[in-house]
């Protein structure tokens, strides 16, 4: 198998995903509307809620909308990760998955290509969101806009791998809605996306520790620090390890002879 084969497969999958994204204008808009509603409506009500203690990477007091921005970036990637795995279930139902899976390349490579495709789409969405936020007076140092790119790739891969893992458990499209509710919402609310850990500790130490060990929190913190041109090694390693674990589990899950495919009677 030559490198060309790999390249062709990768480009085929990424290109298909990007094309699907670009042509589905509703999907693009709805992916942006969700975080923007949170930013313009939800955050507006909490403008005065923060500003009590300064926690890194911030060096001064910030408005709530500034705090919530990295959390909303995480939200974009979380939804995107789930959505691209939703498309896996769809592909499986429609039969196009079969074509992909019989391709003579290693399964892990195909799945990774699928992940990269989804991550690429989410990175595009994030930059458009950051552009709109700029006009809403949410500014980060210019270096931050560069440093956030690798952070976005890693967090996108991690959340995508989680979605992939979940999709390996799901047999039918209808079941996916339940998983969305049981995964997306707890993950989003029990994280540092909306409130900092110190604020959660004030009301519940248990909730704070749940949020701390939530991989989504660490992805958000990785993005938050990177956006201010700072490196958070703990969040980086946590996110990386979470990605490897989810990815490995998803590869096993998609293995027809061992994984969940077997139990479900194959794709």
């Amino acid at each position: 198998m030559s490198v060309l084969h790999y390249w062709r497969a990768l480009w085929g999958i990424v290109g298909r995903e990007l094309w699907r994204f670009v042509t589905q204008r509703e999907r693009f808009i709805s992916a942006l509307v969700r975080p923007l509603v949170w930013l313009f409506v939800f955050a507006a009500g909490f403008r005065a809620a923060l500003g009590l203690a300064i926690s890194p990477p911030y060096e001064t007091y910030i408005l709530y909308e500034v705090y919530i921005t990295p959390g909303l970036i995480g939200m974009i990637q979380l939804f995107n990760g789930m959505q691209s795995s939703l498309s896996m279930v769809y592909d499986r139902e429609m039969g196009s998955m079969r074509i992909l899976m019989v391709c003579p390349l290693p399964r892990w490579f195909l799945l990774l290509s699928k992940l990269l495709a989804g991550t690429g789409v989410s990175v595009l969405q994030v930059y458009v969101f950051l552009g709109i936020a700029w006009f809403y007076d949410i500014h980060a140092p210019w270096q931050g806009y560069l440093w956030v790119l690798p952070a976005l790739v890693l967090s996108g891969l991690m959340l995508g791998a989680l979605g992939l893992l979940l999709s390996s458990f799901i047999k039918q499209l209808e079941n996916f809605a339940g998983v969305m509710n049981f995964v997306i919402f707890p993950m989003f609310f029990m994280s540092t996306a909306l409130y900092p850990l110190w604020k959660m500790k004030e009301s519940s130490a248990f909730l704070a520790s749940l949020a701390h060990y939530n991989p989504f929190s660490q992805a958000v913190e990785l993005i938050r620090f990177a956006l201010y041109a700072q490196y958070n090694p703990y969040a980086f390693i946590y996110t990386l390890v979470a990605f490897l674990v989810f990815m490995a589990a998803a590869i096993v899950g998609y293995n027809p002879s061992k994984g969940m495919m077997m139990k479900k009677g194959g794709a």
Partner: protein
Amino acid sequence: MTKKILSYGLWALLLASTAQAETVFVTLEKDNALAVVDPIAGKLTATVPVGQRPRGIAISPDNKLLYIATSDDNTIRIIDTNTLKEVGKLPSGDDPETFALNPAGDRLYVSNEDDSRVTVIDIAKKKAIKEIKVGVEPEGITVSPDNQWLASASETTNMVHWIDTKTNTIVDNTLVDPRPRAMSFTADSQQLWVTSEMAGTLMILDVKTRQIIKTIKLEVQGVTSDKVQPVGVVIDSKRGKGYVALGPANRVAVINAQTFAVENVLLVGQRVWNLAFSPDQKRLYTTNGISNDISIIDLDSATVTKSLGVGTYPWGVAVKP
């Protein structure tokens, strides 16, 4: 040769850095101390005890001496800005809080809140040379840059008293909004800016007519108006922009000094009271009483770059180039 270049380079670097380095002094009301801050490095470099309840602070025109009102000691202490040691005391009258230094640096005017008086001190002789009866609870006090006027605001009488610095007598009074707190003259001595803590306003007074020419209601989106309690006010030397500390609203208002439009409100620490410019007027330092820190504002970009913990109840601020 390389060595020579290197050493010259080092010297140049050293000179450049010393030329840039300015020192910010902050009085800490509860810690009975003076905080010394290097704002470029963003570090608290020292904390020195100065006496009981230090509040008002000013620096001499030659930047060699600091005057600090230690309210519970009923005196104004003179501190050497290099050694940070006390070199003298001034008789301030009871409970000094705010005071003003004249541009020449030879007279100091103290508001004696409890006695409704302003005490005039001859700094060279370290003697009170006159007590001027003013309205009830005098607080804000300032001298015009042309040294013609001493303005004193009394919080309960709601008046600005115009005192002729030559005769030390009140020439005129202007009724202003309730609880006037702080005042500042523009560099050209043509306007006096006065803040009203209770009305939440900034009033611009014309010095020639001594009348209010503009009243600006200060508001912060998302903050109730009772929390907008303007205190400290400073205006840049070009009369381009003025800045008002909004107390428990935790914001500093940026005001266009030509159009009097409020251009921006910047989030700083809690209960911001007093303000001071850096010598080049590119930065503004704020004392935030409840959050125990100072905020550093970059004025070109109108952003708060850092808030730095300094000690308990930071009150006044003075900057040495």
